[in-house]
């Protein structure tokens, strides 16, 4: 029994040799996530940079020009004057030359001095409903400013004070950078271990292990150990770059983040391992690892789409996504300064998940060996 430890270590050493034998893969492993993080960190932005509006001004009055100037004054809009009927608007949208078209009616100036409400029509390209909504809100903001500059708003008997905590400027970068870290970590880890065992199956070295006195759990643990270290190093690099480069305010404990990130990495590695024991070939293993991590992490973890808005059945499914818990953890620690106790449940779930996956892989692996 006392021999258990060295055996694990020698299996780990063998895996390390295998990793070092292929320096290309190693370089790819370190460079790619960095490149991706930097690129996506800058690329992913909810904020719309430039809303192009075509203006049809039938009124041609000082007031209508004042309204147009109100839009010009905002940094978000680019206006161009546009003449044409509805067909031409369709054409404009199909060529993707405008996001919206503003139509100021003929008697705009006169009506504004007589009527309580004067309609100004905005035709918005809402093919992307999210972008459409954001554009509508931006437009609404300008209209409000215009109305206020003209007169007081309806009297409301109380004041509403809204405060945005943790991210007062609503910077989407703060929201996305932790998400990218979560995505990269889970994918790298799962892909790394997904082929460890299938590789041995394919190259026939599994038989050699079979005849050696090593126990299944020793093989599994020995194989995972080097990847924990590897993924941990990659994790530290990504976290550092993410926080420093994108100047994400760091509110919580760095130590706690490191510990819980390691737990997350172990969960993802165990997931890869589980896949590795199930898949017959490397190719199938990689495909499974990819399919199990890529889109589910994008869509079900809360990376972009809030979980609470999903249909209830799907919300239950999100409990199976490790990145969901890690997003609570990393966003919590970095942006809110959450403590361990506040993150107890996500941590617990990650712990349970990795334990279950590890035990299941060892079980499956032993039955593989016996048959």
């Amino acid at each position, binding site marked *: 029994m006392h021999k258990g430890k060295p055996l694990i270590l020698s299996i780990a050493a063998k895996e390390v040799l295998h990793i070092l034998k292929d320096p*290309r*893969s190693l370089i*790819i492993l370190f460079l*790619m996530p960095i490149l991706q993080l930097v*690129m*996506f960190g800058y*690329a*992913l*932005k*909810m904020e*719309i940079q430039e809303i192009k509006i075509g203006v049809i001004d039938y009124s041609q009055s000082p007031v209508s020009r004042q309204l147009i100037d109100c839009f010009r004054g905002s940094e978000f809009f680019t206006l161009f004057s546009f003449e044409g009927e509805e067909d031409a608007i*369709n054409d404009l*949208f*199909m060529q993707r030359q405008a996001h919206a078209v503003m139509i100021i009616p003929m008697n705009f100036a006169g009506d504004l001095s007589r009527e*309580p*409400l*004067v*309609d*100004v029509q905005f035709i*918005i390209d809402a*093919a*992307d*409903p999210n972008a*459409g*909504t954001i554009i509508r*809100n931006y437009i609404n903001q300008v209209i409000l400013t215009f109305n206020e500059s003209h*007169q*007081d708003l*309806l009297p*409301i*008997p*109380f004041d*509403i004070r*809204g405060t*945005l*905590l*943790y*991210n007062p400027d609503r910077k*989407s970068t703060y*929201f996305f950078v932790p998400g990218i870290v979560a*995505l990269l970590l889970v994918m790298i880890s799962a892909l790394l271990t997904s*082929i460890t065992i299938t590789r041995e199956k394919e190259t026939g070295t599994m038989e050699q292990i079979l005849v050696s006195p090593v126990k299944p759990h020793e093989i599994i643990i020995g194989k995972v150990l080097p990847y924990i270290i590897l993924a941990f190093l990659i994790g530290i690099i990504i976290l550092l770059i993410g926080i420093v480069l994108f100047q994400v305010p760091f509110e919580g404990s760095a130590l706690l983040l490191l510990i819980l990130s390691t737990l997350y990495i172990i969960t993802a590695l165990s997931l890869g391992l589980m896949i590795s024991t199930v898949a017959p070939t*490397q*190719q199938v293993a*990689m*495909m499974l690892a*990819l*399919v199990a991590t*890529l*889109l*589910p992490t994008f*869509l*079900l973890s809360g990376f972009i789409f809030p979980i*609470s*808005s999903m249909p209830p059945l799907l919300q239950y*499914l999100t409990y199976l996504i490790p990145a969901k818990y890690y997003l*609570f953890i990393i966003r*919590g620690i970095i942006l*809110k*300064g959450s403590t361990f106790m506040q993150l107890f449940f996500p941590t617990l779930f990650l712990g349970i998940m990795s334990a279950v996956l590890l035990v299941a892989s060892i079980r499956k692996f032993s039955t593989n060996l016996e048959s």
Partner: protein
Amino acid sequence: MKRIQQMIEKEFRQIFRDRPMMGIIFIVPLVQLLVLAFAITTDVKHIKMSVVDFDKSRISREIVSAFSQTERFDIIDFTQDFKKIDNDMRAWNTQIALVIPANFGRDLQRGAQPQIHISVDGVDGNTAGIALGYAQAILLKYGVENKIQIPIQVERRPVHRVNLVERMWYNLELDSQQFMVPGIVVVLLTIIPMMLSAMSLVKEKEIGTLEQLMVTPLRKHQLLLGKIIPFLILSYLEMALVMTVAILVFNISMNGSYLLLAFLSFLYLIATIGLGIFISTFTHTQQQAMFVAWFFMVFMIIMSGFFIPIDNMPHSLQVFTYVNPMRYFMAIIRDIFQKGSGIFYLAKDTALMTFYGIIIITLAVFKFRKRVS
């Protein structure tokens, strides 16, 4: 020609023999589509809310019940303790706190213009902004509806305001699935063909069968074509299947031409499979091929406008999207489905995508030749 045909037959036999792989190719994308498409909603609902009511008057109770009546907000807690709210917010138990100060109701009736506070978890800035908007709208509505009972100190002046009339074209109901489901189809149908083709040559290299192929009278480009064509046929069938299911299950309205869609899908698959084969020519092991393919895939998805519009990106980064075939096809498929755009409007995207496919396959052939000799 005969040789290519034989090579194609061999490839097909190999693929069909691999049962788990067939499962991955045909079943996994369907399952993912059916599950993931429901995840997509830009609607913000069931925002978890804590209420701090120091006033406890009729008015404050009415305000709270106005919040509890919508499905936008789920009131999860009533408390007087700010520490608890702070803790809940950091533990992700609550997202928004409504604070009604003491004497709010009395001050309101005296016309003393009291304040009401709303604090939102701003980490997800987009959701936070929407949540705050909803909360303000509920309060404003309450304020407007109940102003009769409140003495108005402001003298009434005639109001003249501009009213925003919006017309949301192409997606009247702002249904995200109409926009996202075709996008998911594109992503799913990129992952599998690209991975398959990226690993195909490398696998033969690794198990040593590439040498055997080399000593056959097959020419290099014939060998590559023999690899590409089966993948192309298979992926095309897969695309037809997944697309049909997507349209039927999610009621995606098609405003354009199916023929055009079928044709451009084919061009897109050439570009992606070409990219996969290209990866296969410069990597040595399946592991390397997979990591490189993975890198390209994540890059392609994020830089395609799939969920973040390319317009939002800094201009210096937008340049990178031009080397991304998915960028073109993402725009094409959405425009065909939603706007019913014809080839005339899609000419630029189509040309660039086709050009991309030609270049990448030429590169693959060139690289493969050099490598072998």
